[in-house]
């Protein structure tokens, strides 16, 4: 495949919003920040783990701390009002972004994992019993897999896994067999963080709803890089993390259908989430605050809204096209190398990440050598240990792309992989 010559947007101009992309690496990794021994250009391809934060988002967060930092809700003073408005408006921004009906359906959490746990505890522990089953996939992130495994162990509910085919897609016949009248919840990853597979959420939702079950889609790897509409996807619950989409860490989102959220008891108790408290009993605040106990991540919530504004200013369709362009090019270039095994579907039907191994080179050795070339990738099991067991490998190396990545950076990856292969040849 020839190197693509045209990006869907001006990547070079956009990179100016991310000063971190200009730094070098290679020196002492125990002292944060660029040091005198850092002498290799950074090529950051670990975006599925966390993305970088553009200046406008950093400025929004700094502006909050510099000019209206205050605790939200129940404050009469002006700063508290300003912070409350911005924090509440951030929920509306998220609701608009994912097609939710309103802020009532948008709960701010710490991350996707906490959103998953919120539903598992507040809905799963209360609802599930030995007669029920929960259907996952073999490509679930531990956030979903471990959580439902624990809820299954506590409630007696059967936890089952839809099989992954050799090409990295879900076996939909197996899905049809495993989702049955006793299925209470189907919890499925939208885009696999290891295989890059884009799962057919609408089809799974239709199967699930035909059996009166609920479906929870993990959007951690989809929301950052493509248009997502929860109504269009027909999901009951949906979750994603701010730090993988140009936002800060410490903020994630749980979307839930309002009627479901109304029916659920709180997951955490304390301040912020109550309406009236006596020594004997308490009543709960309206949605979404009922599920946001304690002082929330205010700056991070406001920062997430700024990240959404930033992504929308680029355009989610264009981000998706850019992501596909890089993933397909990387897939093609790596496929051309002898001894490289890539996991997951072909280049034109995957999210913007490529996990692979080089024959005879352990993933951690490969990652160490790539680091010498300034190329930052993830090496390990990517929180999908059972999937790696199924693939028959202990670990893999994953390159993942985002809005600021370029074809030249993919070339740098391929060059470094070739060098690593030669060292071990």
């Amino acid at each position, binding site marked *: 495949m020839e190197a693509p010559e045209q990006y869907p947007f001006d990547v070079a101009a956009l990179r100016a919003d991310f000063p971190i992309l200009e730094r070098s*690496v290679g*020196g002492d*990794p125990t002292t944060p920040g660029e040091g005198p021994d850092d002498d290799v250009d950074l090529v950051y391809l670990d975006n599925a783990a966390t993305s970088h934060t553009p200046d406008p988002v950093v400025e929004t967060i700094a502006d909050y701390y510099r000019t209206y930092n205050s605790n939200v809700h129940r404050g009469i003073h002006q700063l508290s009002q300003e912070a409350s408005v911005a924090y509440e408006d951030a929920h509306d921004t998220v609701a608009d972004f994912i097609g939710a009906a309103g802020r009532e359906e948008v709960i701010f959490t710490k991350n996707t994992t906490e959103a998953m746990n919120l539903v598992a505890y507040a809905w799963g522990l209360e609802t599930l019993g030995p007669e029920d089953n929960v259907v996952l996939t073999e490509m679930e992130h531990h956030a979903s897999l471990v959580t439902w495994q624990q809820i299954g162990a506590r409630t007696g509910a059967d936890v089952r896994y839809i099989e992954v085919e050799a090409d990295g897609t879900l076996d939909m016949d197996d899905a049809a067999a495993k989702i049955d009248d006793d299925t209470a919840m189907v919890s499925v990853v939208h885009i696999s963080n290891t295989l890059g597979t884009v799962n057919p959420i609408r089809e799974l939702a239709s199967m699930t709803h035909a059996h009166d079950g609920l479906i929870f889609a993990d959007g951690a790897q989809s929301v950052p890089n493509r248009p997502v509409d929860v109504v269009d996807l027909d999901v009951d619950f949906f979750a994603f993390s701010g730090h993988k989409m140009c936002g800060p860490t410490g903020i994630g989102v749980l979307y839930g259908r309002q009627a479901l959220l109304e029916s659920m008891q709180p997951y955490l108790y304390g301040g912020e989430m109550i309406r009236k408290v006596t020594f004997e009993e308490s009543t709960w605040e309206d949605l979404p605050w009922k599920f946001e106990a304690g002082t929330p991540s205010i700056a991070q919530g406001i920062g997430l809204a700024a990240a959404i504004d930033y992504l929308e200013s680029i355009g989610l369709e264009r981000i998706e096209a850019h992501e596909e362009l890089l993933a397909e090019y990387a897939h093609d270039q790596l496929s051309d190398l002898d001894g490289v095994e890539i996991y997951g579907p072909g280049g034109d039907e995957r999210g913007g990440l490529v996990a692979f191994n080089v024959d005879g080179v352990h993933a951690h*050795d490969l990652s*160490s*050598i790539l*680091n010498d070339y300034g190329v930052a990738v993830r090496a390990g099991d990517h929180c999908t240990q059972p999937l790696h067991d199924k693939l028959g490998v*202990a*670990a893999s190396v994953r390159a993942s792309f985002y809005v600021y990545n370029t074809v030249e950076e993919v070339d740098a990856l391929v060059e470094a992989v070739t060098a690593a292969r030669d060292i071990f040849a």
Partner: protein
Amino acid sequence: MGLGSDMYRQQILDHYKNPRNYGELEDPDFTHVGENPSCGDTIQMEIDLADDGETIAAVRFTGDGCAISMAAASMLSEELHGMTTDELDGLDTDDVTDLLGVDVSPMRIKCAVLGRQVAQDGAKIHAGELDPDAERTITEE
């Protein structure tokens, strides 16, 4: 280039591709296994002691893992021969990186020292100083 750039010198690659003392002993005095689950690195060490009960007479290891962990275990297996169990217990991280002869980057120290930890814990279990049911051998955090 970074700290890791020198890690893959010829000697390490040689021990990785042609590990010394690789295999199992017929009737070892003790066998111990350690694992770093997040890496997937696993090492088994088998050790025979001489008649004095403290001098290491034979070492074999098997394992699966990165070049650093496998090369370190291979080099250690040569070094351990003739050492006493007390001397084995005294081996620290620097001794292992000295054996490797390279600067091991901070993120990879856990790989380098797994074999040493397996041998040390195995000897302690053999001496009744460590409860294998209470403690797993692991060198990652």
